[in-house]
């Protein structure tokens, strides 16, 4: 909007201004100088090169702009370049992370890796796989979803369709606060119960902690979706004499089902990467354990942590950790994309 306005201003009233390509030239110049400084001073770290380039760019822009355009425009340009630099700064770690995970992850990631457990493979030896961890993650996350999704959706229905007064306000507030509970605290909560009954670690305990983390997320997203359902639909149904509970089940929920599914899948993607509660409650197990209700299990995030922490720098273990990371990221990203796909695919139907 602002660009449109500035463009329409008559050019005669404008002061001197830098040509449109000037930021690119300054950027290229500062990168070149930074590379020169980096090579000349013998700096190894590319991060330093980038930082030097960024500082040069900001200073250069300010100097040139204040010479040509004046102080206020120079400030505006410096703000623009700072904002761009901040954005690029944020992209660098993401790019590095994705690149490292893919590059190192593909080394050992193959069918064998996906279909075998660690079994008797030593921490520092090559070989082994993540089959047991995948089983563990799927079972724990699946059970957590079975618990958290109905409770979350029902709570959201209560808040939107019935909720009023102090109870609804309290639930809303504590759902918000619950979103911020550190995952390790949820783990400690289940642990404290297990200590009272002197139980050994097992998969379902992890599911309970994950469910606690998942519930508030489901409540929030479902609430937003239910609020989007037009009130006329409810009124039309009630006017036909349909009981309220059937109105909710047959009219409100089907209308919002796309958004609710999306919310639940995003919540699943979020808890699938949780390590801390699984570490406390499920403990990890190099063998395949298909029973989530008895005995220690593995899980993907926990597997990554244990490969990293128990191997004392052994290369094969790091390779396995990266490959497991790649699998986990792929799983989470696919869930994310599917969820967004469903949201987009289901969205027009809500208008019916």
């Amino acid at each position, binding site marked *: 909007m602002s660009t449109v306005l500035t463009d329409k201003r008559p050019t005669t009233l404008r002061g001197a201004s830098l040509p449109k390509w000037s930021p690119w030239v300054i950027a290229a110049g500062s990168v070149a100088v930074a590379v020169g400084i980096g090579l000349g001073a013998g700096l190894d770290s590319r991060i330093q090169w980038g930082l030097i380039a960024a500082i040069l760019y900001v200073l250069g822009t300010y100097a040139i702009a204040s010479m040509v355009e004046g102080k*206020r425009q120079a400030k505006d340009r410096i703000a623009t370049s700072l904002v761009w630099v901040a954005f690029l700064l944020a992209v660098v770690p993401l790019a590095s992370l994705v690149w490292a995970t893919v590059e190192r992850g593909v080394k050992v990631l193959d069918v064998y890796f996906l279909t075998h457990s660690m079994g008797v493979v030593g921490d520092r030896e090559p070989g082994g796989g993540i089959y047991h961890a995948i089983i563990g993650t799927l079972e724990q996350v699946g059970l957590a979803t079975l618990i958290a999704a109905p409770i979350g959706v029902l709570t959201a229905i209560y808040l939107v369709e019935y909720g009023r007064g102090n109870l609804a306000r309290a639930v809303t*507030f504590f759902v918000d*606060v*619950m979103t911020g509970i550190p995952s*390790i605290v949820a783990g400690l*909560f289940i642990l404290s119960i297990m200590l009272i009954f002197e139980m050994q670690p097992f998969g379902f305990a992890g599911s309970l902690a994950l469910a*606690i983390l998942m519930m508030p997320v489901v409540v929030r997203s479902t609430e937003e979706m239910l609020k989007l359902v037009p009130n006329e639909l409810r009124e039309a149904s009630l006017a036909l004499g349909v*009981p309220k509970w059937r109105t909710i089940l047959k009219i409100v929920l089907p209308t919002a089902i796309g958004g609710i599914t999306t919310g639940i899948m995003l919540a699943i993607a979020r808890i699938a990467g*949780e390590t801390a509660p699984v570490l406390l409650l499920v403990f990890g197990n190099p063998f395949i354990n298909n029973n989530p209700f008895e005995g220690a299990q593995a899980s993907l995030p926990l597997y990554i942590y244990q490969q*990293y922490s128990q191997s004392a720098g052994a290369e094969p273990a790091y390779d396995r950790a990266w490959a497991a990371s790649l699998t986990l990221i792929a799983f989470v990203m696919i869930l994310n994309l599917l969820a967004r796909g469903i949201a987009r695919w289901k969205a027009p139907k809500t208008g019916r």
Partner: protein
Amino acid sequence: MDITTQKNTATPPPAPQPTEAERKRAARGATRPGDRIFLGLSRGSGILLLAIMAAIAGFLTYRAVLAISKDEGNFLTTFEWNTGTQPPVFGIAVLAYGTVISSIIAMVIAVPISVAIALFLTHYAPRRLSGPIAYVIDLLAAVPSIVYGLWGALILVPQMEGLFGWLDDYFGWTGIFDWQGGPARSMLTVGILLAIMILPIITNVSREVFRQVPQMHEEAALALGATRWEVIRMAVLPFGRSGVISASMLGLGRALGETMAVATVLSPDFLIHASLLDPGGGTFAQNIASKFGEADTFGRDALIASGLVLFVITLLVNGAARMIIARRKEYSGANA
């Protein structure tokens, strides 16, 4: 969203939300058995959520009291964590310091950058780009924390050594940036990693707030001849201040409770180091994760006691953030 617009054209005055009176009438009508059961179920779920929160506080306190009553040291000021010894001596001083310091570093780095990215998305980026970029920021939030931890420990730590050497050369005299050499597994690296991890949530919430800035304010400023930066300083930032504060506090809550990224990157000990570059120190969550393996039942109770402190801190921070948001209900992005 397009539902409402469609409906708007069909029936002019739409009521997006049932009014208080309508809700009351509807609730009074709940006399059929099906209605009663359904209301009971959904209200029960809400009450269950409250009960879980209460149970978390209750059970953690119960186990924590068991541990603290046998603690021979002062729980708040002892620089030790020896739960296996007779008598046990442990305290949270180092953990509290480490948690606060690492979170402060993360906030100092993440808040300005996140606000800048939010401004970038709402005011600077080309229209075509801002959608995909927002999506990339969302993906940044979806990456599991353990992957950040692995990346931090194996990629970021070696990269930090150059920066550490530079800081030591030029700012070593301050004491804060004094570096003895050795791997960069210190509070500063942890803070930087945490900053990367909390960027997305602060960015998302701030972006929502900046979107709500009345168009009129911005156009008025532009009409007075303000540059884009002056528009932001005079119209956007004042409007968004409370939203940015609460966004930052949500990010702070994340940073305080982050476990795996700290546990993989930090090389812990039980001393308070003046220098941010020296490895050592610890945080609540990191200490729980790394001490848990060898802890017996009493040791676990002690860890639960430290977890209770973390729970209370995050509860206060998040509660405060939500209160600020609740005062301006329209910030729907607050659920991020």
